[in-house]
């Protein structure tokens, strides 16, 4: 076997690999050893299980919404029920799935390993963050079981403070608690990245996944407290009528919008940035080539994090804000689109002159690039002031953010889970059925959300329980797509669970990737590294990997 003629090399232990006798999974036994663990890998698995649970709860709501919209008449559920469905769908998906999705699962698992650390800086705070997430999740479920909440995920005042009679306080406090979970994760990441990099792991040798999680962490730490304050004000206004938001009590009705979007727009980048990091890793690995323009991609993450804080008012262009502030925010929104464009082109050019294979993570990454491009460019429609007037609050905006959040983030999440599944569990997922699921999701996704762009331009408002009959055809298409999409999302749940027991044994580095996480055993030891690694190569250095492999072959041989 010659290692120099091909960038794709085979480590000697690939075929004969066995699950290592000692690893983080079997290091300790019993439920308590998981619930009281400080190991970032175990906490990541706890997170993975809990967010998957909430993803499917939110998914069921999405399914019911689409089923209701199959016909123009409000015939499946009552209006209040429908309003609760989309509210709970939004709350669960945004706060309990998308925000923690990549950082708290694959990020938690891999970020310390990628920079050569034994754990995160504060293992106990990491565990606390998971418990806060669980408490927030249980409170959300409590709000749901007690009768639901029907404010929409945006908790718009004064509707949420004076006019609805549902469990706003419970749901608001649930998000408040879950918010601290994400603040703690962000804090932990920032400190770890600053203080715990292995010798030789300079900032510009870090994988781009670490960069993007770093940018997202900064946004979490700076943005989430504003959401927490806002929700507390909503709860106080609802319970003791303090009059911050309600004009009839002397409040400012637009203040809530400003405060809420000051967090919730950056939150969009909190959700998408870690996904972009995943895509950088996947694209590089499967084209066996360093990421094109590493520095540009790294800094574009930081640029998004900075600019992302100064665009919130674009959610309020039609709300009677000053025309001139609308101008400023429209301009800034146009600027924040540029780093995303840079990333997409850099990923595309990473493929150039590579040696590309098409495993499942790569298919998800391709889906991400395509869907994110559509999602991003339709964002420009909404950033253009005059166009926003017609499009905002319609299905166009629903389609736009689902293209970014589901087509972008969820595809990245699934790509990441498949990509690192061998590392996390020591076993491979079944390749052909997972390719099928990636393709199914892609087709189902486009069928679901493409018609919604057309519906949006026609003017169909979002959050409508009933709609004029002429919109039915497109809604039927969308619901049909949602069915396909649902199947596409169910398949990984089944075969990944199956692979835990029956999957082929992965070995240390099934993808021949360069990241530090691939140079250790799968699943890793509790302490990750036997001895602290010393880094003398940049991220994505495939020549270093080839040399290292060659050496190993000679040593073993």
């Amino acid at each position, binding site marked *: 076997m010659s290692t120099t003629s*091909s960038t794709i090399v085979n480590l000697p232990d690939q075929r004969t690999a066995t699950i290592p006798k000692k690893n983080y999974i079997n290091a300790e036994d019993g439920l308590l050893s998981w619930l009281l663990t400080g190991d970032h890998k175990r906490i990541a698995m706890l997170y993975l299980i809990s967010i998957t649970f909430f993803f499917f709860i939110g998914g069921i709501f999405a399914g019911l919404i689409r089923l209701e919209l199959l016909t123009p008449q*409000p015939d499946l559920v009552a*209006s*209040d029920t429908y*309003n609760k469905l989309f509210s709970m769908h939004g709350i669960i998906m945004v706060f309990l799935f998308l925000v923690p999705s990549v950082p708290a699962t694959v990020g938690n698992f891999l970020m310390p390993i990628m920079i050569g650390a034994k754990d995160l800086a504060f293992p106990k705070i990491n565990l606390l963050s998971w418990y806060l997430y669980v408490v927030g999740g249980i409170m959300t479920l409590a709000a749901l079981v007690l009768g639901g909440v029907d404010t*929409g995920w945006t908790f*718009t005042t*004064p*509707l949420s403070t004076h006019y609805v009679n549902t469990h706003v306080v419970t749901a608001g406090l649930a998000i408040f608690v879950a918010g601290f979970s994400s603040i703690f994760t962000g804090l932990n990441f920032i400190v770890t990245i600053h203080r715990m990099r292995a010798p030789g792991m300079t900032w510009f040798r870090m994988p781009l996944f670490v960069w993007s999680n770093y940018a997202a962490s900064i946004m979490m730490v700076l943005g989430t407290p504003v959401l927490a304050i806002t929700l507390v004000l909503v709860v106080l206004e609802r319970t003791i009528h303090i009059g911050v938001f309600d*004009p*009839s009590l002397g409040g400012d*009705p*637009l203040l809530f919008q400003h405060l809420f979007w000051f967090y919730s727009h950056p939150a969009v980048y909190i959700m998408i940035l870690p996904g972009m990091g995943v895509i950088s890793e996947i694209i590089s690995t499967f084209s066996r*080539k*360093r990421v*094109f*323009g590493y520095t*540009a991609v790294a800094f574009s993450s930081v640029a998004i994090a900075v600019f992302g804080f100064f665009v919130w008012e674009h959610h309020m262009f*039609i709300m*009677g804000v000053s025309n001139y502030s609308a*101008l400023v925010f*429209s*301009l800034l929104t146009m600027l924040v*689109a*540029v780093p995303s464009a*840079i990333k997409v*082109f*850099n990923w*595309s*050019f990473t*493929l*150039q*002159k*590579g*040696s590309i*294979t*098409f495993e499942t993570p790569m298919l998800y990454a391709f889906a991400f*690039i*395509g869907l994110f*491009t559509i999602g991003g*460019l339709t964002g*420009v*429609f909404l950033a*253009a*002031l005059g*166009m926003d*007037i017609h499009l*905002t*609050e*319609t299905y166009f905006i629903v389609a736009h953010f689902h293209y970014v959040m589901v087509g972008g983030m969820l595809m990245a999440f699934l790509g990441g889970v498949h990509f690192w599944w061998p590392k996390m569990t020591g076993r491979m997922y079944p390749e052909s059925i997972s390719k099928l699921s990636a393709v199914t999701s892609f087709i189902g996704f486009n069928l679901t959300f493409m018609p919604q762009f*057309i519906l949006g331009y*026609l*003017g169909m*408002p979002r959050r409508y*329980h*009933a*709609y004029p*009959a002429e919109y*039915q*055809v497109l809604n039927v298409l969308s619901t049909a797509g949602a069915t396909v999409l649902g199947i596409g999302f169910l398949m990984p749940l089944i075969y990944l669970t199956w692979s835990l027991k029956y999957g082929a044994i992965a070995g240390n580095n099934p993808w021949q990737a360069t990241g530090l996480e691939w140079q250790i055993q799968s699943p890793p030891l509790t302490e990750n590294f036997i001895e602290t690694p010393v880094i003398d190569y940049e991220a994505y250095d495939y020549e270093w990997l080839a040399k290292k492999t060659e050496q190993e072959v000679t040593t073993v041989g």
Partner: protein
Amino acid sequence: MHISPVLWQFLVKWLTNSALFPREASTIAPYADALYFFLLLITVVGLVLVGALVFGFSIRYRKERNPVATQVEGSTLLEATWTIIPLALFLICFVWGALLYFRIYNPPTNAMNIYVVGKQWMWKAEHPGGQHEINNLHVPMGVPVQLTMISQDVFHSFSIPDFRVKREVIPGRYTTVWFEATTPGTYHIFCTQYCGTKHSGMIGEVTVLTPDEYKKWTEGSTSGMSLAQNGERLFASMGCNACHTGDAAARGPNLAGVYGSKLRLTNGSEVLVNEAYLRDAILNPSQHVTAGYAPIMPTYQGQISEEGLIDLVEYLKSLKTNYRVQQTLTTSESNQAAPMTPGVVKP
């Protein structure tokens, strides 16, 4: 090839009964659509470009054809290209979008004004001539119409997709939008801001009439009292005329001709008296004390409905002299002096 007739009929029915593009029924619509098609073009070109790169490279550099990857650091020139070109395109979109925004939100000065009050879950339109409509809006073709809107409870949003206009309807402040309809017909009105249980029932129809028909409609559906006349009644019954008599020695400032003027307040600031100012000054008088007057006016918060406030605002807009104010005041004082004689209020 043979298509089954059932399927064929189904397809034809589909295409004829379903909408794919909204009608263009206002002067703004073609401008909005032009920008829309420009943006669509950018999207399609961008998507095709990215798609071509990804698929092209995937085919050209797949492992079977290119077993050895060539490591490339990056390319400043290429990266500058795909920074500057998108930036330039986005800036064009920004300027175009801004121009459209100002076109949609800056009404021409000769626009006729209609008030709209949003409340859970209906739209109430109030024409200056005293026509009231619920979930309906009749407007003449070819005339700029400005809507001055306010919500009585939560956030609503007034949208007419076929006109490409929309504006948030906010509790506690007036927002405006304008349009000039070009084609007679009926078009959807939607509430697009989620507003509670019957959000999807907060819909209506705008009926565009030719000027002749519109004239017929206004005559046929008037309530007999214009908004300003209603306002005059309220002005007297709320006791406003007791202080705002127009006399030099009156406790309240003279309101005749105040609309449109610049007013100096006790806190030193100068304000333009418009609808919003008049409304705020009634509800929150202590914040809006005209220079030279004592802050003695009580608040009317919670005592007048939004429709009542609109009547008052319309009345004050039309108030040019204090003659009738004083007449009404004298009448009501003489009524109080002789309360036993009912029905003597002069028209």
